[in-house]
């Protein structure tokens, strides 16, 4: 008798990819995908159940399908709709899901996809956050606030159900060819506005690494919170140069209003919580994920970003590869 896994948020491309991946793994009998709207693509062997996690019906799904593992990955930064509906989905959805989980006696494992956004971004941050630290400046709005509240509810659940192994994965900013997030949209801007006088340290996680980490946690996750990020850091200026895009340094206070203007123009590249991240940056320590959870990402931050760069149309400036080829040609010609 294998495991029965319930995956939330499968209408999203990333959620459905994970559900499909999981359904092919030996040791897992059945994968149940849950979401409000049916997924666009083919779900393969995953059985889809249309249910809203904001609704108590989800408890019936968990009980009726004999689910023993729940993977909660529908906490997202951009749901397409407005901010208030995203908050409702993220926070109220998690509360309902956890309430249902608490009533499910057969539940053994809960995996929550969280985010390093929970640490916030400020000038008083330590260089590297470990899992025991908390935000120096509590995020007051936006996605970061949602994640903070979701984590609070998950911790409450873990206290009330000590028999369930709760694995919380705090993923760094996701990049990859198919990732659509405010951050990747920001890097796609033809001229990239950066905070004047600041150069943030950034860490990225490749999308395949997040899938692998979630799978690892689902199969043999241990209780606890774990930072998941590619090793190494990139500076914002360095990242933008690697994309071959010109930067436009903008004073910090103007960056938020510029984000508003861009939003009016239909580009949602620069949200307020992103500007804090791009100003002060954030680094997380991943040694606990390596030593306790036993997971190491395949992509470093640098490699993950290079993969994103390949998927973006080249910028106005010559790319590093072109410049390298040109210079190698010139120097090679000299030696010859």
């Amino acid at each position, binding site marked *: 008798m294998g495991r029965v896994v319930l995956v939330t948020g499968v209408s999203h491309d990333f959620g459905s990819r994970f559900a499909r991946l999981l359904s092919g793994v030996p040791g897992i009998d059945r994968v149940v995908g849950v979401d409000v709207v049916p997924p666009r693509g083919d779900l393969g062997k995953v059985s889809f159940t249309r249910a809203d996690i904001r609704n108590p019906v989800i408890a019936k799904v968990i009980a009726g399908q004999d689910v023993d593992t729940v993977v909660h990955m529908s906490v997202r930064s951009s749901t397409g709709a407005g901010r208030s509906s995203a908050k409702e989905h993220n926070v109220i959805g998690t509360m309902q899901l956890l309430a249902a989980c608490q009533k499910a006696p057969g539940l053994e494992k809960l995996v929550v996809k969280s985010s390093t956004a929970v640490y916030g971004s400020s*000038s*008083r*941050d*330590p*260089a*590297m956050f*470990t899992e025991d*630290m908390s935000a120096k400046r509590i995020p007051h709005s936006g996605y970061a606030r949602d994640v903070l509240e979701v984590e609070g509810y998950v911790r409450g659940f873990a206290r009330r159900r000590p028999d369930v192994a709760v694995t919380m994965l705090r993923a760094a900013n996701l990049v990859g060819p198919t990732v659509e997030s405010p951050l990747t949209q920001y890097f796609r801007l033809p001229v990239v506005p950066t*905070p*004047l*006088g*600041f*150069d943030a*340290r950034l860490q990225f996680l490749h999308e395949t690494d997040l899938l692998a980490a979630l799978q690892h946690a689902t199969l043999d996750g241990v209780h606890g919170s774990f930072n998941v990020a590619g090793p*190494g*850091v*990139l*500076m914002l*200026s*360095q*990242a*933008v*140069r*690697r994309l*071959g895009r010109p930067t436009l340094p903008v*004073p*910090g206070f103007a960056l938020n209003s510029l984000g508003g203007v861009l939003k009016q123009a239909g580009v949602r590249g620069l949200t307020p919580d992103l500007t804090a991240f791009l100003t*002060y*940056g954030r*680094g997380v320590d991943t040694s606990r994920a390596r030593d306790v959870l036993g997971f190491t990402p395949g992509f470093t931050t640098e490699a993950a970003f290079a993969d994103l760069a390949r998927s973006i149309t080249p910028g106005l400036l*010559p*790319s*590093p590869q072109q*410049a*390298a080829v*040109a*210079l190698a*040609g*010139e*120097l090679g*010609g*000299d030696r010859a």
Partner: protein
Amino acid sequence: MPDAEVIPLGTRGRPGRGTGSAKPSAAARNLAGRTDKPERAKRPKPAEEPEAAAEQPVPPVDVPPQPTAEASAEPLARSDDQPEALRAESVREREPDTGIPVSDWINAATLAAREVFGDDWERRLAELLAFLRRRVTGEYAVDEYGFDREVTERFFLAMIRPLKEKWFRIEVRGAENIPAEGGALVVSNHSGTIPVDGLMTMVSVHDHTGRHLRPLGADLVFRLPVVGELARKGGATLACNEDATRMLSGGELVGVWPEGFKGIGKPYSERYKLQRFGRGGFVSAAIRTGVPIVPCSVVGAEEIYPLVGNMPALARLLGIPYIPVTPFFPLLGPLGMVPLPSKWLIEFGEPIRTDSYDEGAADDPMLVFNVTDQVRETIQQTLYTLLMQRRSVFY
């Protein structure tokens, strides 16, 4: 740096298609008549001719921006590929035999490069170009604190080194007390209105031991634009227990100025009187990681900007600890910001070992206070000794 590629626009008055292609259309060839080859044979100095030709139509290519001999030789080779007929014609239309030969340009460029970069100018120039390329394309690495080793060594330290050697004429003593490897905590007094002493200690440590001193900075440093960015690139990180412990256990040489703003912002009348050494957090970090504490005493920094007054109201308004008033600032404006050229002495004392304490020692406040006092007392005594030895403030 890619070589500038000259793409001809239009025909430059020659018969042709105007597409930039070297070959004129058949109609144009007919119009132009047949004059090329025989004319060229009659020219007086045929050997000089390709050089002049290379130089005349495209002057910006082989003049100063490319000071290597090889680089300027390349356009020469390229322009040789052009059909001779066309080139001969264009040369004839301008003055044929004037101008400076390419070989002279090459010699001049070589001489200039040797003047600037020294005898192994070729290697140094290639290094510089590679450095610039890495900068422009972002192909460099920073560590997890944002420390950019390359730009620090090549740029920041090189910029402040003249200040250390020529302006303050810093005399360093006891550099052998800094461990050659492994974590260590350099604890120093703080003075001078703006933290110039931190920069000078950094460059002195690097020049005497080859190691980078990683300063711990107040959170104000990282809140300020530009300053915070430069501090991180120069190797600094926030003065908090987490970062200090992390850096020390990572085997870095960490510098800390526990007096903080109380130290650099104290009036001139209180010079060389150590202020309170924070809450001793640096000691507990050192004990926890078992690294030695190297006391460092800086004499001379107090006199660079004698602080005689303060503008507390304006400082509060701007959210900074103080706004200094010196005899020259703000009276003389920007000129008042030039530091007085005092003579500096930096002495590194004997390391104070912390690895003999047992496990829980870092959480024992009494022990931490005692070690803090020991470090403070050592620095204060060394300051008095150095002041006795100093002949004058300025030499």
